[in-house]
């Protein structure tokens, strides 16, 4: 498959995946609605979005989430720590979806390494998911922001 054909196929698959994952992301945001926007602030969520957008590898995102979790643990806020732990788990699991999309996209062009393609795709799915969580979270925020 040529680079262009592969890119276009993958783009369509990611778009379809993103639309499907909206419900899961909304459920995730709803589940933790009581933490928003006071315990988990918009700043933290936008921080995650920024990290996800700019990360070169999925590991960078993991590091950010672990840092947030550890900070919450040190401050004795177990509910917040649990939020980040669950977020990490959910985002880790997206690797399986990335694998499946890569399979559906067909054979990789010879110029792309399978491991880096999978990592890029995983990061892309993470960006989509986190964006949905942020949107739904801010939509349902029960308390108006103070800034």
């Amino acid at each position, binding site marked *: 498959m040529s680079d262009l054909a592969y890119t276009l196929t993958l783009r369509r698959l990611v778009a*379809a995946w*993103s*639309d499907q994952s*909206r419900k899961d992301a909304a459920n995730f945001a709803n589940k933790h609605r009581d933490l928003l926007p006071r315990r988990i602030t918009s700043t933290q969520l936008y921080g995650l979005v920024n990290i996800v957008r700019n990360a070169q590898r999925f590991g960078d995102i993991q590091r950010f989430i672990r840092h947030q979790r550890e900070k919450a643990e040190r401050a004795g806020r177990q509910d917040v720590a649990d939020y980040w732990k669950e977020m990490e788990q959910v985002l880790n699991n997206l690797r399986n979806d990335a694998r499946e999309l890569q399979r559906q996209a067909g054979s990789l062009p010879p110029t792309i390494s399978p491991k880096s393609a999978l990592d890029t795709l995983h990061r892309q799915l993470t960006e989509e998911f986190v*964006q949905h969580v*942020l*949107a739904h979270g*801010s*939509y349902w925020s029960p308390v108006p*922001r103070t800034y």
Partner: protein
Amino acid sequence: MTQTSEGRARKIARRVALEQAIARRSDKYAYSAKDYAEKLTQTKLKNTQVRGLETLAYATDRVSAVIDWLKVRVGRDDKRNRWAQDGTGHDLLATLEGLQRDARDIAVAIRKDYSMPKEDSDLERQVHLRLIREYLKHLAAHFEYQKSEVGGE
């Protein structure tokens, strides 16, 4: 007719049928979009903000990008004088998400008459996005017109 040209003709017929179905729905949306436009004219929203939503719908290949954009704007509207005023943004979100039912009807009819397994799998989602674009096109046009009538911008 050879097999290739038959396939091509079928593809064109499918596309024409799809465009007609979308156009028919679009005409029906004009009235309800006008109602939203009237409500939004009572808010502090400017033309660029409503146009921004329309532009996004035309630029993206995801339904979720439009929905997320609107959710964030409604959520950010702490003063409740823009997208969140009188629940208009909330209702608009429900309307846009509800267009999926129309998209499903269209996709079912197209699949029945012009089945193409490869294209069919993502058809409903793509039609949904097209319908959202149509709806927002009416909304933005009415909004701009009404805003100029009441002397805004």
